[in-house]
Every structure is written in structure tokens, then in C-alpha cells.
């Protein structure tokens, strides 16, 4: 029992850390209606590492694995940077396509180019499956420390400039806001978001991150409109689901990320019912 708790401690810590940052970003994502941005950015990063893999093989050097791992990370971030620039530039009144469509096309192109590139390599579908599912159980304390550092830096940055980021997000809803140089802040948003996604996907896989991003902030949209209260509601829902999901997956011996997602789904359904009840009570109260 004790060893079991010790074993689960790292996954707990990792998922709680991730929830803190994803709940915040989730509200931005939902307000901007760019729901699938994380999947797209993760895929673009994967394209980056595929490109560096091929470059390494072509240059035929016998690099040490350490070195090639580094160059893959660098290339992944480089691709995220380019994607952030492209998204920022195409957020323009003259481009009449919704942002989500641009993200979708970027996602499709990134995925299929990865397939074309890795065609020359091997085991590409295994890679795709790994990226989807991930495995939070094998997270190490070293990874958690790194995640903590990334989240602290980006979190503080977003905290200090929270008004700027909120203003840019309001622009996406065609509301009037006063902001100088919206392009710069939009770019910084996509860039920091990309960094978080790349770090997070390495640990838990795309699907869990996707669920963490959209489900808690959808629940919070049902009950609150102010950012602070939305973040608090999201943290409550996300944290509870993660703890229950991890515990149940350990007790029943089922994979943990689907279990966490199911708990998030259940909390969403309960919230929707609660919301309907509250509305009826209010209406009959009047």
C-alpha cells in the first residue's frame, strides 16, 4: 500500500501541475474558439522532430543519442515558433476564414507530411499511438521538476501581462478592446502555449492534455463568467477528476488517461444537469 502510494505520488504531482496551467489556457482556447489548437501544435512539433530525425540520418553522422535528442527538441520548438508566427499573421480581418479552420488545415498538413517523411523510416504508426495515449505512470521526478520550471516561468509571464492576453482573446470575439500591438501579444500567446503543449505531451500524451484543456473550462463556462472564478471552478473539477481517475485506474488496473477523461466527462454531465436544475429553481422562484 505504502509503496503503491509512493508510486502514484509522481503521477499525482504531474497531473496537478498540468491542470493548473491547462485550466488557465483552456479558458483562452475556448473563448477564442480554437479548440483543436493543442492537437495541431503537438503534431507540428512532431513534424519538427521527424524532420530533424531525417536530417540526422541523411548527414549519416554517428551522433550520440543525447545529441540527436537535443536537436530533435530544438527542431520541435523551431517548428512551433514558425506555427505561432503563421497563426498570428493569418489572424487578420481580411482573412475571412475562422481561425479554427486554419488550425485544422495546419494539423492535416503537419500529420500527412510527417507520414510522408517517416515513410522512409519505420514504426511511424507506433509513434502516432504513443503520442496519442502517453503514459503518466512512468513520469520521473526529473521530468516533473522540468515541467514545474516551465510552468512557473510561463505562468508568471502570463500573470504579469494577464490584461494584455485577455485583451487579445477579446479581439477574437470581435469585441472592442484597447490594446497596442495585438500581433505581438498574440504571437507570444501561441509561442508560450506551444512550449507548454510540447512539454506536456511528452509526459501525458495529447488526449489527456486535450481533455484537461477543454472539459474543466467548459464546466466553468456553465457557472461563471469572471476569469478568477472560472479558473477556480476548473481547478476544482480537473483536480478532483485527476485524483479519482488515477486512484481508480490503480485499483481496477485499467489505463489511467482514459479513466481520467471519463471522470472529466462524468463531471461535465453532472454540471450540465446541475445547471438545468438551478435554472428551473430560479425560474420557479420568480
Amino acid at each position, binding site marked *: 500500500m505504502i509503496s503503491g502510494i509512493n508510486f502514484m505520488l509522481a503521477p499525482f504531482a504531474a497531473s496537478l501541475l498540468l491542470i493548473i496551467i491547462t485550466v488557465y489556457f483552456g479558458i483562452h482556447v*475556448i473563448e477564442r*474558439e480554437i*479548440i*483543436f489548437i493543442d492537437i495541431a501544435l503537438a503534431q507540428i512539433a512532431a513534424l519538427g522532430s521527424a524532420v530533424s530525425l531525417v536530417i540526422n540520418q541523411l548527414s549519416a553522422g554517428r551522433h550520440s543519442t543525447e545529441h540527436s535528442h537535443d536537436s530533435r527538441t530544438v527542431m520541435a520548438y523551431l517548428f512551433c515558433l514558425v506555427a505561432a508566427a*503563421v497563426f498570428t*499573421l*493569418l489572424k*487578420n480581418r*481580411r*482573412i*475571412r*476564414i*475562422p481561425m*479554427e*479552420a*486554419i*488550425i*485544422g*488545415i*495546419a494539423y*492535416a*498538413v503537419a*500529420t*500527412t*507530411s510527417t*507520414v*510522408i517523411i517517416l*515513410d522512409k523510416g519505420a514504426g511511424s*504508426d507506433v509513434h*502516432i*499511438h504513443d503520442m*496519442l*495515449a502517453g503514459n503518466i505512470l512512468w513520469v520521473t521526478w526529473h521530468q516533473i521538476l522540468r515541467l514545474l520550471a516551465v510552468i512557473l516561468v510561463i505562468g508568471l509571464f502570463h500573470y504579469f501581462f494577464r490584461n494584455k492576453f485577455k485583451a487579445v482573446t477579446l479581439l477574437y470575439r470581435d469585441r472592442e478592446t484597447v490594446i497596442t500591438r495585438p500581433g505581438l501579444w498574440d504571437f507570444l500567446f501561441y509561442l508560450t502555449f506551444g512550449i507548454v503543449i510540447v512539454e506536456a505531451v511528452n509526459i501525458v500524451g495529447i*488526449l489527456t492534455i*486535450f*481533455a484537461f484543456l*477543454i*472539459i474543466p473550462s*467548459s464546466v466553468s*463556462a*456553465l457557472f461563471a463568467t469572471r476569469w478568477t472564478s472560472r479558473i477556480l471552478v476548473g481547478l476544482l473539477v480537473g483536480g478532483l477528476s485527476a485524483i479519482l481517475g488515477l486512484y481508480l485506474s490503480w485499483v481496477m488496473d*485499467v*489505463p489511467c*488517461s*482514459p*479513466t481520467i*477523461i*471519463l471522470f472529466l*466527462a462524468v463531471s*461535465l454531465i453532472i454540471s450540465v444537469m446541475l445547471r438545468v436544475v438551478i435554472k428551473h429553481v430560479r425560474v420557479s422562484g420568480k
Partner: protein
Amino acid sequence: MVDNLLFLAAPITICILLAGILSYFGNHILSRGIIFIDIAVAQIAALGTMIGLLAGFAEESLNVQMISYLFTIIIISLFALTKFRKQLISQEVIIGIIYCIGLGLAMLLAERIPGGSNFISKTITGNLLWVTWDKVLECLVIFLIVGVIHLVFRKPFILISDAKNGLPYSLWRTRMYELLFYVTFSVVIVKAVPAGGIFLVFTLLIAPTAAATLFTSSWKKRFIWSWIIGVLGSVLGIYLSYKLNISNAPAIVTLLGLTVFVLAFGKLAAKKIFKPDYKQADL
């Protein structure tokens, strides 16, 4: 060369059929802002197939297909009912949630079926080259039926797609039209994904209409241009894949996708160059 052309005839035909129906649907999808609906539908259909397999029916038997269809239609009907007068959570978010839960359930079920994880990655690629003429005919008939339904109901469908806030009809009347729209859409997607793969279907839906929407907002022009771009892109993509010896669905996807980005940046650049003229005209 002639042999090769004969070999490619069925794939090219199915591509043109897919481009025809999907580019049409794409205009509605883009206007409604529910970009990822086809990926969610495909995921639900795969989950339906897995449920059928768990119930003990053989793979690719009629029973499994029926269960998969039934399951997809039930979920998509529920989705059609999430249309409200005042949308608290936008429909694209609901699509994301459906996709996420569907994939999570599929991953749980995959453990109980031998080779189950194949069903998760199987839909990604598709197999355009191995399409038979029987399959082409089947698709043609289904797409024609769906096309006729949409021709009859074109007016309400366009009105609903155009409505940004509020509904053009009463709540339940709108929901009934929505039900018809999404059921026909799901039938097309469930047919199209095994042939072309999820990314080809996705790109044929979104890319041609996105390219057309850059330059025009009238529905008629968008239909015509997205058809032209979709069909041209598919044929060119297959030709390129044959010349460069790469797989054909990824070739079409990359070609159409990059076209949209090039056109979008081209439009931005063109406006920048001509901007001084605009100012003078204003003065």
C-alpha cells in the same frame, strides 16, 4: 503508362466523387465553425465498430456495420439537440468533448479486443489505391441520394448555417433540420473515411471552401469554386504522388493545404502592395 492510368482510374473517380460531396458540405461546416466534426464522427463510428465486435459479431459483418451506423446516428442526433437559442458552450467545444470521450472509450475497449488498437490508427491513412468499382458505385448512389435531399432542403440549411446569433426558425423546427443535416453528413463521412482516410476527408471538407471563402462570400460562388479547387487538387495530387512515388492521400492533403496557406499569404501581401492606392482613392 496506359496500364497505370487504368490502375488509377478507380482511385481518381472516387476522389472526384469525394471532392464533389465533401467540398459542398465543407461550405456549411466552415460557415457554422464546426471544423472538426468529421473527425469526431469518424471516431464515434470506430467506437461503434468496436462495440459491435465486443458483442461477438465478426469483423466487417453486416451486424457490426449496422451497430456502427446506429451508434453514430444516435450520438449525432444528441449533438443536433445541443443547438440552443443562446449558445453557452459553442458547438465546436461539444465536438471536441465528443471526440475526446470517444477516443478515451475506444482506448479502454481496445484492451479487450485482440488487435484493438488497430481500430484507433486504422482510420488515419485509408486505402485509396485499393478502391474497387463496386465501392465507387455504392458511394455514387449514396452521395446522389444525399445530394438530392440537400437540393430539396437547400434553403433552410443555408439559412441555419448563416445565422450567427439566434435561430431563423422556431427551436424545434431548427433542430429537425439540423437532425437531417447531421444524419446525412454522418452517412457520407462513414462511407468516405474507409476509402480516403480521415485526413483526406478532413482536407477535402475544409481546404477548398477555405480557399474560396478567402475571395468571395456568396454561397453560389463558394460552391462553384470549392468544387473546382477540390477536384483539381485531387487529380493533381494523385498525378504528383504517381510522379514522385509517395502515397496519394498525403500528397493531396499537402497540396490542398499548402494552397490555402499560399493563397492566404498572397492575399495579405497583395493588399499590402495595393494599400497606397486605396488611401489615394479614399482621399
